């Protein structure tokens, strides 16, 4: 059977077409762009909440999209273990919809930041990281104004192995210099306890083609290849 992925198009999403391009043309998986009001979970094996400024990020980043009917559909997928990834604004939406714990605050500098950073793989057992090695360092870009991860219970995250990525140096050291936005403990991405839902601020879809990467890396692909592999294993 064919695997089908949905990229949800919230009003104001702007990395939606980028994700569709990478999934369809680079990874080669059947992917549809689905308007948020039209999304039906039964049609899909996995879902991507793309980056952008859903509903203009008015009120607070991700909060309005978190109340879209698309999230009710996605909640069914969350419960039955299908893979869900939220990238950048998608991460903000997942946090606001309480798929994932914590909050994303304004960057420490109070400025938007667009640059390539390095992230270290902390948990390689999630639906999106199981083809990575623990402690791998990935080159990947960020572009956000509200990406400073915060939680009042980081211990619980650690106990449940919910920290997936931390900002690091190229060599893998977790330092304050390597932290681009002031995130608590350099956290760049987290997952739910069941590990089928991952949210992260960096953009794997921008890091999937060597032509776009300063060092010709394609680390972003591994996220999507892991997802496909995860779906295949679930289906068999």
């Amino acid at each position: 059977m064919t695997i089908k992925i949905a990229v949800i198009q919230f009003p104001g999403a702007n990395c939606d077409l980028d994700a569709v391009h990478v999934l369809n043309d680079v990874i080669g998986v059947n992917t549809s762009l689905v308007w948020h009001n039209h999304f039906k979970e039964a049609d899909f094996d996995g879902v991507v909440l793309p980056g952008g400024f859903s509903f203009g990020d008015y009120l607070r980043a991700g909060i309005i999209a978190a109340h879209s009917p698309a999230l009710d559909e996605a909640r069914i997928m969350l419960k039955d273990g299908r893979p869900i990834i939220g990238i950048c604004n998608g991460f903000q939406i997942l946090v606001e919809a309480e798929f994932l714990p914590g909050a994303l605050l304004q960057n420490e500098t109070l400025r938007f930041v667009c640059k390539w950073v390095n992230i270290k793989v902390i948990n390689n057992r999630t639906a999106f990281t199981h083809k990575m090695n623990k402690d791998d360092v990935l080159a990947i870009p960020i572009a956000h104004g509200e990406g400073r991860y915060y939680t009042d219970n980081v211990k619980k995250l650690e106990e449940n192995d919910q920290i997936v990525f931390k900002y690091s140096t190229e060599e893998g050291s977790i330092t304050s210099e390597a932290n681009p936005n002031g995130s608590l403990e350099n956290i760049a991405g987290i997952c739910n306890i069941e590990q089928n839902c991952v949210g992260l601020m960096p953009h794997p879809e921008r890091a999937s083609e060597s032509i776009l990467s300063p060092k010709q890396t394609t680390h972003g692909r591994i996220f999507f290849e892991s997802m496909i592999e995860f779906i295949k294993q679930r289906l068999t």
Partner: protein
Amino acid sequence: MTKVNLNGEEVSVEMTGDEFEKVKDLLDREPTITELGGFDVMWSEHCSYKSSRPKLKLFEDAEANYDYVLAGPGEDAGVIDIGDGYALAFRIESHNHPSAIEPYHGAATGIGGIIRDVLCMGVRPIALLDPLRFGRLAGNSHSQWLFKYVVKGIADYGNCTGIPTIGGEVEFDDSFENNCLVNVACIGLGTIEDFKHAPSRAYNPGDYIILMGGSTGRDGIHGVTFASRTLTEISEADRPAVQIGDPFTKKMIIEATLEAVKTGFVRGLKDLGGGGLTCATSELTGDGNTGANIDLRKVFTGEPGMTSYEIMLSESQERMAFIVKPEGLETVLEVFKKYEVAHAVIGKTDDSKVLKVFDGEELVVSLPAKALSESPIFKRQEKRPGYLDQLLAQKTPEPTITLKEIIEKLIASENICSKEWVYRQYDHEVGVRSVVKCGEGDSGVLRIIGTDKFIAASVGVNSKHCYLDPYEGAKGGLVEICGNIIANGAEPMAMVNCCNFGNPEIPESFWYFSKAVEGMNNFCRKLRIPIVGGNVSFYNEDEVSKTAIKATPQIMIVGIINGLENIITLPFKESGNDILIIGETEAELGGSEYHSVIHLIEGGIPPKIDEEKIQARWNLLFELYQKRLIKANHDVNKGGFIITIAEMCFKDKFGADIDLTGYNVNNLRDDELLFSETVGRFVIETNPKDQDEILDLAEKFNVSVNKIGVLTSMPEINITGLNQDVKLNTNKMKELYDSTIPDLMEI
């Protein structure tokens, strides 16, 4: 302000008394107040180009002379055919006056406006570029405030709409202290079919006119007439005339517009900018040779009780006008409903050639459709400023500090240092097209997904050079900006410009405009570069200090690179390779950063342009590219070629041993040789084994090419062959280069 008598009542208008008489002659009656408002706006300098039009006629024949130009000057954006069925649309315009009053919203709505101009050509906006001018930052909190919020306004708007800001430039100079320049450029990409679906005219009677997007409010009424007046102290009170942007609505408008165009039922498209509904409806029908009936009661307004005058002249942001085939009305409306964008059918086109606007039963406007665009033309006087002779005669004083100290001061100076603080705030990667990103090359390079074709674009000009000689300065800007994209491997295909000048009623100010236009025109004709669009911003003067800005004819060039392997990048690649310089250095320190930073003078002889030499160098470069003989390329700009070399060293921490013994053929002083800003030079990296072949080709192309050094892996640049040896530490230089703007802005 002029006071005129309208039907027995005194009314204040921006137009002159003569123009008011011309309106009455044209109509053969007194205009209604709404009609008068329309004329007042449409005949303003900003909308009518009444001072600049006679001069801009020079640019008018791009479509006729170049078979790949699909739309030229006079359209909302220039459009070129770049092959493989693709069309590229682009335009640049100014948003100076609103930004000087309210930098955040002024800059943001500037971005909003330029996106609409490109969108209404039926193509997807894929890139933004922003050349900016401010007063010097050091010790000036007003300049810092303007700079900070203009950048934030651009970032917040561009980032939210998902259009990457891939380039720009910024200069700091006292003349811009109270009149900053915010120029915004946008590039759109689509198929030639998309473009053909979206003419900006209503040529078919019986079509529906739909207004779509933001609601019409009282904001921005008379924003246009305001932009054509010199800024005064009272301008702060004009604050309500600056509009507020809504990038989220804009994003919805972009998606809804592109989807509507794809239905094939759209027959015309126009954005609502300066002059609002008046401008859009009169231009659609006037250019299309049709007429229309508009019902203002159908227009969705942002507040109750708006008069017909206010609705017709409102410049509320985020609005588009669609001309739709009757049989496709429902389909197009369905698209708008999906994206939840407000819309209303406000009228129908007809063959009357008259624009009729009703407020319920009352006919409030009844004008020949073309009347509003028939503004008077002013033949302005021009006069070369008397102060120029003295300025040009300024001699370069002997420096009192070492060359090393000078270079370190220059690389840390505001106009030369890294602009990373700016471009980190712009999402320059959204859209997954950015191949050469901000800070990595002389231009921004975007891929066209699904092809092996790339778009390169760059924007800028040197205001200090133009101040001393607008004719050569404008040409120099073209050499520099073409040089930027050529350094990345692209061939220049077309140019658009944004002319920022002072008050055209002052002959000395108009002379600058006139000479700059002549310079651009002559250069572009000689080098076969079509000028496909432009924008003019006059009245950039500050009545408080009685100074005009330095003349700034901003130039944007787009070009194409075929094949990934043909993209050339800036950073040095391998130690042991040769460093060559293409082009001689002349004694041209006039308007240089060296003069202003080290000697605090503005005069001297600025760079002159020899088109034949420039053409020969470009030809040589493409020959060398084709033979794969160039490893890195960076064009020489502000501060001279040592700055260029340092910038090429930074990324991968190279150093260079430079020997200038054989290069100083013009017997220049050391400071002239190092810091002259002679335009059209390039520093290239080549393999030593190719040296003979390269020098042979240089001779064949009659181009001066000199080996001036070799790359090393040590973090230092050593310069010999001068009267004093210079030893620079590249780590320290990089630190100076990087820290200037953050140090000034993060306090």
